[in-house]
């Protein structure tokens, strides 16, 4: 019961907050620069951007700018990590890092994934954490918001997508930074450390020397949540007491996880000028989120199998891997696991490896579908791919050449959409297949059988969904894992941005068709149902066999 109230408060409250934020983001990202404050900001950004702020860009130019900037992000962060032992702000004397791990981490933070095959507090210096990783957490998130803004502009029928360098600055300085400062202040008040001093050394009552890692945690944590990054300052991520001290920081963190992804839908609706359509899309996403949350909480009511047959009374569900200080342990952990995987956040508030099998399935579903609000900006872009396919099939069923926002969906659009969707499935199933059949995967497992399978499946799902959370229980800091997931993360980041933007550009170039009662509406409940059905069918038909081999098999084993 407490759990359901928690879901209602967190999800419902954030949904309410997302409405004004969406309005603000439209103002910030796609401003009318003719006058007022927007014009001043514009001047400032043009000044900062210098000659990199060019004119309006067509889809191709926009994408090239974006990719060039992302290459710079990758190279700079790679360099900082590789040279951290020679760089300042290293009070704890962190040493050189192995090459494949640097590649994996640079890829992971560049593409907003934040899959971590390391523990931050014992691997990276403060300089690396702040100037490589935290910087990437801002700009990679802003890249996503910029991409969505550009796509929405094209769908609104504008021939140009805007200017990437301008959009990037708008995303960082007008959206992410102000929000991060506000939330980080609250987090510090909630007891989170924010210091550049090195680890504290203490002597316990038993006389044992203890080293307590700390650092600029509040700043790092806030943007990690707001930007659906998810990379923790500490290895245990948001289960670490310094990264998530209390019930209140826990609640605020959960709100931060879904706030911008939710607002992105409204921003999209405002730019394309079809708020009713945005409301339907929002409703579909919200329905998925609520069903997954309720499911996860429900499945987690069952006691852990570790205690099966032992004389232990279990009346609060599975407590393995949960932090009791957050309150409502049966709700907070599963809810967080759903929120963090629905969006492509990837921070964790409980041990996913310890969840009951079917509860563990819900985060995987979140990453397979990858469009329940999703990552900042890119979640809505992913949803657009599903919308294109739903519109195509539904459009045929009403007896017309399918059209979306008055533009026809034809062979080219269908082709690009299915390639984007196929890539995601290919990375997850293909990657898992290779690692399941070889020592690359088999030798890194902590568990055998179905649970071990889930560990590998989860890792590739997380990489391909640009999520970054880990099921854990996997010895993943090996060269094969680092390289494979690094490549998957990069491809799975840019393919689903490039192709949908290409679709939007192709649609923008088409003539509009007039709307009539014979046109498929994208603003009514029927379309919402169609969209849900499309997502469920594509997801289920692709992933049902692996779900059966992993979590479902494990669950059924316990049922026996």
């Amino acid at each position, binding site marked *: 019961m407490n759990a359901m109230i928690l879901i209602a408060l967190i999800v419902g409250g954030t949904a309410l907050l997302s409405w004004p934020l969406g309005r603000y983001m439209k103002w910030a990202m796609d401003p009318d620069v003719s006058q007022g404050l927007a014009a001043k900001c514009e001047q400032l950004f043009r000044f900062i951007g210098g000659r990199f702020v060019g004119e309006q860009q067509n889809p191709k130019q926009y994408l090239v700018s974006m990719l060039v900037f992302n290459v710079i992000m990758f190279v700079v962060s790679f360099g900082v990590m590789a040279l951290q032992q020679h760089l300042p702000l290293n009070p704890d004397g962190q040493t050189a890092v192995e090459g494949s791990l640097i590649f994996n981490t640079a890829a992971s933070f560049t593409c907003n994934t934040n899959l971590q095959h390391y523990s931050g507090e014992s691997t990276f210096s403060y300089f690396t954490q702040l100037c490589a990783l935290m910087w990437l957490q801002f700009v990679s998130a802003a890249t996503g918001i910029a991409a969505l803004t550009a796509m929405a502009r094209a769908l609104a029928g504008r021939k140009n997508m805007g200017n990437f360098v301008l959009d990037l600055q708008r995303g960082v300085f007008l959206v992410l930074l102000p929000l991060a400062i506000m939330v980080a202040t609250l987090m510090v008040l909630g007891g989170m450390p924010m210091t550049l001093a090195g680890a504290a050394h203490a002597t316990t009552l038993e006389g044992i020397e203890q080293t307590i890692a700390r650092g600029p945690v509040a700043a790092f944590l806030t943007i990690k949540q707001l930007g659906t990054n998810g990379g923790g300052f500490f290895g245990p991520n948001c289960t670490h007491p310094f990264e998530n001290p209390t019930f209140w920081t826990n609640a605020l963190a959960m709100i931060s996880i879904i706030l911008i992804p939710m607002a992105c839908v409204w921003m999209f609706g405002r730019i394309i000028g079809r708020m009713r359509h945005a409301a339907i899309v929002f409703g579909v996403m919200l329905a998925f989120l609520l069903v997954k949350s309720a499911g996860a909480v429900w499945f987690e009511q069952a006691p852990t199998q570790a205690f099966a047959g032992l004389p232990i009374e279990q009346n609060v569900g599975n407590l393995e891997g949960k932090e009791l200080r957050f309150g409502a342990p049966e709700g907070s952990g599963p809810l967080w696991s759903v929120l963090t995987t629905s969006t492509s956040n990837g921070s964790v508030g409980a041990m996913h490896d310890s969840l009951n099998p079917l509860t563990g399935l819900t985060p995987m579903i979140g990453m397979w579908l990858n469009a329940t609000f999703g990552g900042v900006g890119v979640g809505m872009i992913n949803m657009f791919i599903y919308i294109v396919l739903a519109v195509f099939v539904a459009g045929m069923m009403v*007896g017309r050449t399918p059209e979306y926002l008055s533009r026809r969906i034809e062979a080219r659009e269908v082709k690009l959409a299915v390639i984007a969707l196929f890539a995601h499935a290919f990375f997850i199933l293909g990657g898992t297949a290779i690692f399941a059949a070889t020592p690359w995967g088999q030798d890194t497992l902590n568990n055998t059988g179905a649970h071990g399978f889930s560990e590998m499946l989860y890792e590739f799902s997380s990489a391909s969904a640009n999520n970054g959370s880990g099921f854990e229980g996997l010895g993943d800091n090996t060269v094969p894992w680092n390289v494979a997931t690094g490549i998957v993360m990069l491809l799975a980041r840019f393919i689903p941005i490039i192709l949908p933007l290409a679709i939007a550009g192709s649609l923008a170039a088409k003539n509009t068709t007039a709307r009539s009662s*014979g046109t498929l509406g994208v603003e009514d409940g029927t379309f919402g149902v169609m969209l849900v059905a499309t997502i469920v069918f594509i997801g289920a038909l692709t992933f049902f066999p692996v779900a059966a081999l992993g979590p479902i098999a494990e669950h059924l084993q316990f049922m026996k």
Partner: protein
Amino acid sequence: MTHQAPSLFDWNIVGPATVASFKKLDPRLMVRNPVMFVTLVGAVLTTVGAFTSPGERGFVAHLSIWLWFTVWFANFAEAVAEGRGKAQAATLRQARKETMARRLSDGREERVPATELQKGDTVVCEAGDIIPADGEVIEGIASVDEAAITGESAPVIRESGGDRSAVTGGTRVISDRIIVRVTMEKGHGFLDRMIAMVEGAKRQKTPNEIALTILLSALTLFFLLVTVTLKPFGLYAGTVFTMPVLVALLVCLIPTTIGALLSAIGISGIDRLIQRNVMATSGRAVEAAGDVDVLLLDKTGTITLGNRMATALIPAPGVAAEKLADAAQLASLADETPEGRSIVVLAKQRFQLRGREVAAPHARFVPFTAQTRMSGVDFSATDGQPARIIRKGAADAMRVYVDQQGGTFPSSVSQTVDEIAGQGGTPLVVVEGKKVLGVVQLKDVVKGGIKERFAQLRQMGIRTVMVTGDNARTAAAIAAEAGVDDFMAEATPENKLQRIRSEQANGHLVAMTGDGTNDAPALAQADVGVAMNTGTQAAREAGNMVDLDSNPTKLMEVVEIGKQLIMTRGALTTFSLSNDVAKYFAILPALFATLYAVQGARGPLAALDIMRLHSPESAILSAVIFNALIIVALIPLALRGIAYRPIGAAAILRRNLLIYGLGGVIAPFIGIKLIDLILAALHLV
């Protein structure tokens, strides 16, 4: 001959189709359809497997037989659809038999085979001759029997100049003599194109079909990924999934149902048009018809019956209605125009006044002339009857006439005249002597049921625009009565073209009908231009459809067929994918039954077998058999098209989602279970 729909499984079609479907197994043809090509490869692999695999040979053989059936059924569906077209082509071809032409060169006539005619040659055709090639009448007038292409036995008039100058090769002159200039070389004529079209020989994929093929190929790739990766997953879990079983799973999952029926749906769309005597020049045109949202309809013949008819008799003050009727009838007895006859009929209906035989010398009829703009009858005084002079005509002409006679034109009659004109009618004033008797109201009579039809079109999201040469006032009244959404008064071919362009600029797709040469630019500009077969060669060339019955009302049916075509594709795609749920629940438990099993017990995933099927082999076979049989079961639906109702897009989507989406999830659960029971009962597994 009318183009009757052949019954779905006419032996004359099914026989040749059976043979053709074997010929279609040629991999070079199959590769055009990626879904069925994958199925073919699967069938070949399992056949090889049946001979080489160590155990369970019978099961694999059984499996491979059904995979071959799946492929063959798909070819059969296409062959049946083509066969139906061929049956119609055969009748057309009879008309194309070798003829001799009487070619004119330097004023002399020479006999040459029709095949040697060149474009620009002139030929003579007299009664009894078959017109050797498509062309234009340049001299003379003749009645022509066009039954060969229209199925209509009544001859039509073809004459030089004007809008009825086109003749079609293969039709027969039955009276008089015409000289025809050949406009099409043999082999490219109208009849040839019709035959090619109905046979599907030159069928190219339409844009929507191409997009759908891409989606289906992608889904095939998805399922290929799913099944191929199962092999290493099995190895991880310590089981070897055999190739035939994985092939069976793959074939069940890929959208074979829609893949098999896709081309049959396209062919049958054209076929359904032909059954309504409409020839499309491409499948693309049929598809475009489904997208049309503006119809330009000619008023005359489409919306109204074509002629103005007397609908009311309004007497002047102090005149008995019967007296007016009597006078009006007498004045119209000799008037053979449809308007005149309608007055006689109206008087008869209202007042039981019979058309009398009125003949000279008592009566002298005064015909209508452009100068007097009135007609009537004069009776000389006989048998005690006084002389009568009755005239009827347009109001302004009659006013002058009455003034000349020294009578007065009552103001209430003037008022009536204005009212009638305001309602889109034509007032005819009847005068006897110098006394105004009253007004006959002539009106365009709107066809029965047309208003409901337009309401349906509106539901479908289609706007109707009435096109007429009438003035705006008359047009507005008829438009209101017929319930069209908009009208174009005083239309000329030029402003018709203009209108189409502006509608298209606003994102509309426009369909229209036309027959005259001056309609040709508009027909070409319209997204769907239906030329009347009675029209000129230019019009027939410009449009992308030809209506052999020359019935403009048919435009609406054409739109419905276009919509039905796309809807059938969408519905069967949805059905095909929905079926996969049940197939997963049949095959995966069979595949995974022994996985993670402890000491010989059934593995945990055996619990997924919610259908409680007889055995793993029977589960897999049942799914494959269902997958094959559903193709055959749906051939009639593919050929007929799914039911179309004009209920608006959202309602149609709800309906189709329920029937083909939800129905598609449920049906195979029942079907597979039934097949499983039968297989078990027959001890086939």
